[in-house]
């Protein structure tokens, strides 16, 4: 029984939150990595693209809610999601047409485009705040829990509760579906193959008749979808606040780089590595150990490797170590 309690406590506080957070980071990192792989620059505006897509989704969600539309136990935002993606896609395509294309045609070095994307980031940042404001927005409706801590306790008779939120379930399911579709698209379809060819060797791809503008457009469309899905899932699970999305950029880039920039598989692995390193290394093992150890050996302290204030230091230490020993990331990406 005690072992069960220990496992449940670990699941509840480490595994489930870590997995959901990891999935959110992975989706964000996929977008960053695609832009890096195909358009060859680090897109600092990605966090705010997520914010913009999520904002559009929230506005549609509110409209749907006011019309009395709902998905029953599922959040209405899922219904609004395609419209959010559409809005983000329009924004990205307009940005590309108005800004990035200019630099691409002049064959500007990547570092210039990175700085340009920083400027774009601030514009998106202001745009989102201008439209929806700076406050927290909660747009979750429907059933909150698949299983709540209290129900779990009364069901099993254990001392520890296990909570699985609907949003955590949705996050993981949606992330799996999105990743599967993306890989099918990149590996099996003609457009996907031309994107990979363009990523591998731009000149060769041009010679073999691939239309670069089309590849760029499809990339932005996919990035818009990934960013909006990641943003909405994150917003449903936690809450939407423009400032937080801006801050999300850091762990997302860490995930993409740890996994190997430009490598989609690496982005997913990186997301989970960063998420779990934040949660596990700073976890206080006291509760778990009290269940596992005989009474005489029970710890009196927190049994914490390091304080939670160091959780970012942990993920960035991992980043540095990976880059020192494998400059291209865990999975072979392009070196930075």
């Amino acid at each position, binding site marked *: 029984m005690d072992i069960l309690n220990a496992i449940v406590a670990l699941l*509840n*506080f*480490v595994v489930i*939150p*870590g997995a959901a*957070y990891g999935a*959110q*980071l992975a989706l964000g990192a996929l977008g960053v990595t695609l832009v890096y792989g195909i358009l060859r620059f680090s897109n600092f505006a990605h966090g705010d693209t997520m914010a913009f897509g999520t904002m559009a989704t929230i506005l549609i969600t509110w409209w749907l809610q006011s019309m009395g539309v709902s998905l029953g136990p599922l959040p209405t935002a899922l219904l609004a999601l395609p419209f959010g993606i559409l809005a983000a896609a329009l924004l990205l395509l307009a940005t590309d047409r108005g800004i990035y294309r200019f630099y691409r045609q002049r064959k500007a070095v990547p570092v210039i485009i990175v700085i340009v994307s920083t400027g774009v980031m601030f514009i998106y940042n202001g745009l989102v705040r201008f439209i929806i404001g*700076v*406050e*927290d927005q*909660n747009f979750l409706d429907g059933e909150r*829990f698949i299983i*709540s*801590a*209290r129900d779990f*306790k009364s069901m099993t008779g254990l001392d520890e*509760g296990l*909570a699985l*939120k609907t949003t955590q379930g949705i996050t993981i399911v949606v992330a799996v579906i999105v990743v599967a579709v993306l890989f099918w698209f990149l590996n099996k379809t003609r457009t996907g193959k031309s994107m990979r060819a363009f990523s591998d060797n731009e000149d060769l791809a041009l010679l073999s008749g691939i239309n670069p503008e089309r590849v760029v457009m499809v990339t932005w469309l996919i990035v818009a979808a990934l960013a909006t899905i990641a943003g909405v899932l*994150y917003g449903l699970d*936690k*809450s939407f*606040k423009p*400032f*937080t999305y*801006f*801050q*999300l950029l850091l*762990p997302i880039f860490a995930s993409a780089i740890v996994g190997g920039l430009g490598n989609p598989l690496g982005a997913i692995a990186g997301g989970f590595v960063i*998420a779990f390193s*934040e*949660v596990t290394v*700073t*976890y*206080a*093992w*006291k*509760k*778990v150990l009290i269940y596992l150890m005989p009474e005489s050996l029970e710890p009196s302290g*927190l049994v*914490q490797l390091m*304080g*939670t*204030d160091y*959780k*970012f230091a942990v993920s960035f230490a991992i980043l540095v170590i990976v880059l020192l020993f494998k400059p291209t990331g865990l999975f072979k990406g392009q070196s930075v």
Partner: protein
Amino acid sequence: MKKLLLATAATSILAGAASAEDIKIGVLLGFTGPAESLATGMAAGAEAAIAEVSASGLLLGGQTVVPVRGDSTCSDAALATAAAERLVNGDGVAGIVGALCSGATTAAFQNVALPNGMVMISPSATSPALSVLEDDGYFFRTAPSDARQGVVMSDILLEQGINSVAVTYTNNDYGKGLAESFEAAYTAAGGTVTINTPHEDGKADYSAEVGALASAGGDRLVVAGYIDQGGPGIIQAALDTGAFDTFHLPDGMIGDSLQERFGAAINGSTGQVPGTDSPGAAMIEAIGEAQGFQGTAPFAPESYDAAALILLAMQATGSTDPSVYKDAVMGIANAPGEKIYPGELAKALEILANGGEIDYDGASAVELIGGGESAGNYRQIEVIDGVITTVNFR
């Protein structure tokens, strides 16, 4: 000699021209950054007082006052300094209301206000460190120090029979100061703090923090954070995982969005926020309603009071020179004299013009103690049936 006379005459004409201009008051708040959602209400409060004085036509023989906004951000010392620099040397303000967060306030005051001899009255910086700041009498705050709040908090919890708590604080001057003063007061009175750990604001995920807090345990979770920052994320995660059911929430966490977001889910949670049962609180609410801002928004009353104190001190000394009127601030805020509430600034200006005395009570029952900080009146609240309810005043 002739030249000198001419020069003197020219200077006096220039000085005369300058005094006919508007008096500018800096409103230096964190309009962007981690406390940006507090700034809107606070700026409205300060600007309401400025507009009221200006409209009365009684200040220093009928001068008008205009607010000039500056963005101090919350935690970026360099930006706060730059914004204060612009207000003082660019716009030529005669006094500053601000800054919002304790960190920004310290930076703006030490780097700009003090060297330039500028009065700063912060409505919301509550870090205990500001009490011992070397200020030459230029710094005041209409918010109380958190050293006092820590004691109030500890009293409330112990009275409720809560003898063991876990504490998490926002990792800045405000959170750390409050958490430390609380832990000192609480353990001295016999309580146990199982863990005292910071959380970063605006971060993506708080599972790690909640995991550690849950593991440490305790009867209640003290969240010394911001309501529109990491605070709700921590509460949400603690509720969802079943780690804690009730919370104790200091001033930064009390706001309408708390009950909107959590409602009955945090029934039984307690907290305290600067506030009084003085008539001023209702009056600022009425003013806010008329002008389209929320008079009860966190620190909006204190902001109104900060702006009012600067202007009334100018009137009392007949000067807009900070080095002159700074000495009048304490006298105006405290007894003796006629009590002044929000909306009565015209009356106060008149009394001062006639050489009378006032005891400015304002919207937040201002009473300045020590080096010029609010004595600290707290409203003890409890979440009952999903509504933040006032249960006591301390």
